[in-house]
């Protein structure tokens, strides 16, 4: 039967159990789709039960009331705020320099990881790409741990941890931008007999510059949040103070720290927006 005949045969009122008997939506597909959704939903429910019911010590957590009470402990103690300003400033600087160092490292890595300008063919391309993947797979806390053990406690390992972490994103997006450039100007500069590096600087860099700067600003924004926690493993900044307050059960002070972090993040976002409109 052709589709039209089938439609005629089912008639306008031909409503089946699962949807209308519409030849454009055969029953099999709808059945399949519902089964998939049901299956998915049941997996979700089972896992939810597992996590929320079985894995949680409800005796200690208490009911919703207790949870809200505990949450209220975090209400910020504003009197404590001035004492953390210095640490917040330090955190801000860690984020700033971490981003800048990462930016400097990311440029050569991006050149390596861009198929059209990589200097040593497949070898350098893979070197660049692997660096990017590693930088993005390892959390900054782990990098911070490594740097702290090599340099001691303080903001420097924190900056380096952020730098290494930022390279991944910056190099990846810049490499993609390089791979998408207009080849015309590159040909033109090559045709003048310019050296490789001159071609890079004059034909490639100007084209990717706006994207690069935008991404650096974006990373700076993200790095402020990352910098806030590095202190927990010794990387400087406000992270240590936060951990200390939690451990000494001074939850209201911890709340103050959170407030400070939020304020710092919002300030950072504001600065990012201003710089972006000024530069681009």
């Amino acid at each position: 039967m052709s589709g039209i005949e089938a439609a005629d045969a089912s008639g306008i009122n031909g409503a089946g159990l699962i949807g209308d008997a519409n030849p454009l939506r055969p029953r099999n597909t709808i059945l399949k789709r519902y089964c998939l959704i049901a299956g998915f939903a049941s997996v979700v429910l089972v896992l939810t039960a597992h996590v929320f019911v079985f894995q949680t010590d409800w005796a200690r957590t208490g009911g919703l009331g207790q949870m809200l009470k505990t949450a209220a402990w975090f209400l910020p103690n504003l009197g404590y705020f001035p004492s953390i300003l210095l640490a917040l400033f330090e955190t801000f600087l860690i984020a700033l320099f971490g981003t800048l160092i990462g930016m400097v490292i990311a440029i050569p890595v991006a050149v390596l990881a861009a198929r059209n300008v990589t200097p040593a063919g497949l070898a350098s391309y893979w070197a660049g790409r692997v660096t990017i993947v590693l930088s993005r797979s390892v959390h900054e806390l782990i990098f911070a741990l490594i740097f702290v053990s090599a340099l001691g406690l303080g903001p420097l390992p924190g900056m380096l941890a952020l730098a290494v972490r930022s390279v991944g994103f910056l190099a990846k997006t810049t490499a993609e931008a390089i791979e998408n450039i207009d080849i015309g100007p590159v040909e033109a500069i090559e045709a003048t007999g310019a050296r490789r590096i001159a071609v890079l600087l004059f034909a490639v860099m100007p084209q990717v510059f706006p994207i690069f700067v935008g991404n650096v600003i974006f990373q700076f924004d993200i790095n402020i949040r990352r910098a806030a926690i590095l202190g927990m493993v010794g990387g400087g900044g406000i992270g240590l103070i936060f951990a200390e307050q939690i451990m000494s059960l001074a939850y209201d002070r911890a709340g103050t720290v959170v407030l400070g972090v939020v304020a710092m993040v919002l300030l950072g976002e504001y600065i990012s927006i201003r710089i972006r409109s000024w530069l681009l």
Partner: protein
Amino acid sequence: MALLEVVGLKKTYPTGETALRGIDLTVNGAEVIAVLGLSGSGKSTLLRCINRLVEPSEGLVVLDGVRVSELDRRGLQRARRHMGMIFQEYNLVDRLTVLENVLSGCLGVASTWRAVTRAFRKDDIERAMELCSRVGILDQIRKRADQLSGGQRQRVGIARALMQQPKILLVDEPTSSLDPKIGAEVMELMCAVADEHNVPILVSVHDLDVATGYSKRIVGLREGRIVFDAETREVDRSMLQSIYTDQDAA
């Protein structure tokens, strides 16, 4: 000795497409030579094989005694400094100013440090400005290249190519992206300036009128082969017809 000699140039792309099937060409003095042919006839490929933006599959290119087609990377860079190229799509660096674009013509000889800091030599800047003045864009030199019109951009392209003080100008369909009146102005300018500097031009065109209007010699190209090579005044109808394939003529 001829200025440019092309012997037996062939190019087959990795896709299997053969663009050039054996080109022999000689350029002697400061003349304007038009390479006339339809799209796909190989004119662009021919120009690009001369400065090896496209690597020829076979054949010899000799510029002023130097066997360009056999040079290594360094040697090729040095050779390219003597060949100025002007592109159909202008190929300027959009974000840079007009002056910087013209100055990029001397990147071949500038040291790495100068390229990094954009600190070009005073006499280079001087020469760039004079070229800009000659092509009529001196009042635009601080504008970004993407703020210019098509005709203005091509003038910058001309200035950039001449900045190299080249021995020959390789010009790829310079007016195809411009409307006819502007195109004519650009062609006039280009031929005049090249003449002043005593530089031969090898220009690819698909428009008959442009070929006959500005060149002293026309080389007809069809499907990768030269079908005629004669002084413009000697070119007749049948020669012009030969650049069309049987399908086009029908």
